[in-house]
């Protein structure tokens, strides 16, 4: 499809920079992701901007998750996945020669639809990534900072050594968020992070996103227009284009969230 530049609509409480004045963290060019022969998402040209929340929305099956996962090369884990086109991260194609997915995922974190904490203690869930990536100095304060940013610290500070599975669904998801931001990524991708949660837990996550975007760039996949309206600065609409093989997703519109 064609590249759509974001349209500016005056927002009374948005005193910050407009999107087009910010730099693009991501720029996809002709991105097509197929599983085997069947494309899931086709020819997407989209830019993601710094310190904003960008929502990806569309009907089910239109490849929103596939698109999201192509931003941190998680599709590499699926053997039949094939990626065509470019995904430029600060100008570098993450699918270029010699780019290691490990480095990509270091900068671009992800929170999944179903909370997936490790079968470890709450502390170790957050600390594991830090240890692996060599950010072991001051581990305790890093863990505390991450849990605070995820609005979970007060609830767990007295049971850090307890297992993560003892937490409620909403708490587990915030733990996964803490785990992702502990390693100081540049971008956090969220794949329908609240769809498995109750309304109260959902609103906690949504409130968090307003805070987090000051430090990170956020991309959220959601199927809920109201949620996009609540959290997103920019919304990209995908739709399902039907073909004989089924359907694949294409980008149709990309504006500031109405």
């Amino acid at each position, binding site marked *: 499809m064609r590249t759509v530049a974001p349209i500016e609509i005056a927002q009374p409480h948005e005193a910050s920079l407009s999107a087009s004045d910010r*730099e693009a963290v991501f720029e996809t060019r002709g991105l097509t992701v197929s599983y085997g022969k069947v494309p899931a998402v086709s020819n997407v040209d989209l830019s993601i901007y710094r310190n904003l929340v960008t929502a990806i929305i569309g009907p089910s099956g239109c490849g929103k998750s596939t698109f999201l996962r192509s931003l941190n090369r998680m599709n590499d884990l699926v053997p039949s996945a094939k990626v065509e086109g470019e995904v430029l*991260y*600060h*100008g*570098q194609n*993450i699918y270029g020669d010699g*780019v*290691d997915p*490990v*480095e*990509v995922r*270091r*900068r671009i974190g992800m929170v999944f639809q179903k909370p997936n904490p490790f079968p470890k203690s709450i502390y170790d869930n957050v600390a594991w990534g830090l240890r*692996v*990536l*060599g950010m072991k100095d001051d581990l305790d304060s890093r863990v505390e900072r991450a849990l605070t940013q995820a609005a979970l610290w007060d609830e767990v500070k007295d049971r850090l050594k307890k297992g993560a599975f003892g937490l409620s669904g909403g708490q587990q998801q915030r733990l996964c968020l803490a785990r992702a931001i502990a390693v100081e990524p*540049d971008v956090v991708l969220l794949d329908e992070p609240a769809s498995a949660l109750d309304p109260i837990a959902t609103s906690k996550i949504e409130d968090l996103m307003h805070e987090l975007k000051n430090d990170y760039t956020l991309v959220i996949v959601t199927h809920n227009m109201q949620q996009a309206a609540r959290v997103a600065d920019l919304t990209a609409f995908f739709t399902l284009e039907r073909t004989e093989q089924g359907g694949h997703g294409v980008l149709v519109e990309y504006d500031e969230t109405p």
Partner: protein
Amino acid sequence: MTTDAARFTLAPSRRTKRRKLVNVAMQGLATLAALSAVAVLALVIVSVAQRGAAALNLDFFTKTAATFGESGGGVANALVGSLVLVTLATALALPIGVLIALYVSEFAPPRVADLAQLVLDVLNGLPSIIIGVFVYGLLVVGSGQAAWKGSFALAIIMLPLVARATQEVLALVPPTLREGALALGASRWRTVLGVVLPTSVGGILTGTVLAVARAAGETAPLLFTTSIVANTVTWDPRQPMLSIPLSIFQLSESPDPADHARAWALALVLLSFILVASLTARTLLARSRRKLER
């Protein structure tokens, strides 16, 4: 833009390079381990094939061992013995194993089923020499060795294998099949006999083939039940009989290289049978599983 590209570079840091090295090294070790296992398999098969093929001839299959001092002769008695021993053992283990599996899968209350499962698992893990000693004490003491007593010992070893294979295939029978029969008014037994068992026959047979392959290779249970034999070919299960593994075991203890050659040849026959049976059973099992899952 340039400063950001530098700050957010995707070029690997020194630490990442080291981590990647460790990753590759670990993958290398795992590959090495797997290839070593395959290499050992190949080594054993090649040894057996090379050394065994040399001693194979017509006499080997048709004659029994030559009297001491003469050359030539064969292992006909061991071949016949294995055939009789394993066939009898299968005749005993197959029906009982299937019955037990039916009980555990279809009729038993959950607690009893768990316990029965545990008993089967423990039986499966018992050293086969203990089973040999048991059958010796039960049947041989006072009345002498006989092939059917050896078969009884082999049957004990085959029993958990047949039962487990049957259970696995019974579990694959879709519940709708059972419900359909019951809804038509059939009793549980008729449902089992008429519907569940026929669907499971393929899996039961292949499980039996695997159990047969196992029994064909067992030596220890036969050591005390059917190893003191006359040097003739006999088909009478009331007489003691040699089996192929027993013969290999005895021949290996002899200092005569001709006996070693015969042992290799027997090993070739045994290994060929077992490998072919195992591979066939596995492919059939996979196929019948796929059929049931459709």
